[in-house]
């Protein structure tokens, strides 16, 4: 129902757009209306880009809060650089790799740099946004994939090696798989559906994180003979700030993925997104309480993110009930997944793999299980897409990070890890004024 209204809305826009702007002076009445609608759409997309931008602050805070004080400068630096480098890389070549125009469906490249074509600033480019808005929104998305990796490899990775990997990952791997679906490639033709990127963004980031964590090994002291030993994050307030900002940012991430300000479609997406987030938080808190005896804040926070990642693939296809179910299940999944990765001795300080990879896949499959598109056929498309992108990304990360490991090394020395990367990589402390406790007990 919504779908059809949305299509109607878009087609009207498109008609208006074509007849519109360019011959402004001739037909003032029509035009101005089209102008207004275009301006609203574009405004929403710009705001959505700003909201996705703020997710980077969210990630920075979450990752800092869930790791140790002695590595905070390093994590902050990585997050600051990811957004900077991400935007520049995406402008230099990422955008044109992801949206190559007409192409073979697997790989295309429209050249270096970004310039709007003749119609780039009018609704003839797209009824929903200008070329610049398009770029900005997509660039903010792209950088999130690298940020996801950043959290998982925290507290032990060499700064230079990480940044190198981030550039390659954001600049090449993410856009290629992105082009398969959002660039109009073979997956989109196969009818794979990934509304705002449970697979294209989150699982992609998660695969990168998984491979890096495997090649990197756990932090010193994380797994002992007697089992997993937690290394508590140093600031729960920062972690909480991070998650609230991520939820806020997701309004732009999912809401902006409608690609217009269509009232019905966007508002539905915001509601399903919020419901899933809320259900994810409640789900994780409940499961954590039942399973572990105490309501664990960091699990509740992960649960919210899990719900958000879970709904992302089908945010525009779900009813409120679907969204709550998806969120609730995501919240439960994330708790068990965190425990499982502990068993597997894969050390992920912030739970990024559980949240983004595991729930990303779950969310992708959920499109075939819940909501307007549910059905076996769709489910098979979803699985196929998730697998295809998973294989490509994992291989890419394996080769890229493997080569970096061979050539430059990826892990800081034991002394540096013990003393903290802040001193080792930056000769600087995050909190020079505060007495920190004896951490190694």
């Amino acid at each position, binding site marked *: 129902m919504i779908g059809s209204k949305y299509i109607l809305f878009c087609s009207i826009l498109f008609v208006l757009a074509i007849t519109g702007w360019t011959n402004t002076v001739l037909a003032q009445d029509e035009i101005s209306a089209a102008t207004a609608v275009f301006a609203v759409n574009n405004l929403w997309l710009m705001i959505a880009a700003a909201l996705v931008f703020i997710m980077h602050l969210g990630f920075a805070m979450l990752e800092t809060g869930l790791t140790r004080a002695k590595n905070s400068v390093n994590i902050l630096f990585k997050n600051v650089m990811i957004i900077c480098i991400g935007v520049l890389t995406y402008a230099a070549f990422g955008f044109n790799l992801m949206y190559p125009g007409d192409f073979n469906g697997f790989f295309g490249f429209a050249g270096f740099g970004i310039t709007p074509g003749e119609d780039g600033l009018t609704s003839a480019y797209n009824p929903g946004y200008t070329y610049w808005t398009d770029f900005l929104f997509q660039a903010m998305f792209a950088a999130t994939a690298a940020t996801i990796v950043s959290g998982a490899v925290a507290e032990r990775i060499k700064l230079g090696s990480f940044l190198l990997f981030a550039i390659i990952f954001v600049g090449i791997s993410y856009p290629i798989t992105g082009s398969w679906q959002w660039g109009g490639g073979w997956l989109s033709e196969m009818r794979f559906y990934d509304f705002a990127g449970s697979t294209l963004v989150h699982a992609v980031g998660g695969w990168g994180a998984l491979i890096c964590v495997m090649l990197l090994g756990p932090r010193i002291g994380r797994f002992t003979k007697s089992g997993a*030993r*937690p290394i*508590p*994050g140093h600031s729960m307030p920062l972690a909480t700030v991070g998650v609230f900002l991520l939820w806020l940012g997701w309004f732009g991430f999912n809401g902006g993925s409608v690609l217009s300000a269509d009232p019905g479609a966007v508002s539905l997406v915001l509601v399903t997104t919020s419901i899933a987030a809320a259900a994810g938080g409640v789900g994780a808190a409940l499961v954590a309480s039942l*399973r572990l005896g*105490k309501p*664990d804040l960091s699990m509740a926070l992960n649960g919210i993110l899990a719900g958000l990642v879970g709904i992302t693939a089908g945010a525009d296809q779900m009813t409120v009930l679907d969204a709550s179910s998806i969120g609730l299940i995501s919240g439960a999944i994330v708790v068990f997944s965190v*425990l499982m990765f502990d068993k597997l001795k894969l050390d992920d300080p912030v739970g990024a793999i559980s949240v983004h990879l595991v729930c990303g896949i779950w969310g992708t499959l959920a499109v075939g299980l819940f909501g307007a598109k549910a059905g076996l056929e769709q489910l098979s498309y979803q699985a196929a897409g998730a697998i295809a992108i998973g294989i490509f990304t994992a291989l890419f990360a394996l080769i890229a990070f493997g080569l970096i490991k061979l050539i430059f090394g990826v892990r800081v020395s034991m002394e540096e890890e013990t003393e903290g990367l802040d001193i080792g990589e930056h000769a600087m402390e995050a909190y020079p004024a505060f007495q920190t406790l*004896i951490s190694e*007990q």
Partner: protein
Amino acid sequence: MKLIIAIIEPQELAPIREALMEHKIYKFTVGNVLGQGLDLSKHEVYRGVSYDIKLLKKLRLEIAVNEEYVSHVVDAICDVARDAPKEAGRGKIFILPIEECVRIRTGETGAVAIG
């Protein structure tokens, strides 16, 4: 002159302080320490894994007094502890000899300087 070093439970500082005041002992110094003793370590849980904290938060009191006050101090501290349940980890008192004491402000030394 003796230096009394007491390792105590953090929540007992307030009553101990009052007990000392009643014995007219007004001056002391206190610092944060972590201690390992007999007491069961604490469980905390983080991201689903519970773990033991073996170094527990304690306070370290330093009270320099003249001989005659030593027993007062020891009593004051032990009395407070007595009111509370007899769990392990209530701490220790160590008494060390002081050879000299100087009041920085005036340069006074010896027994008069201590109080």
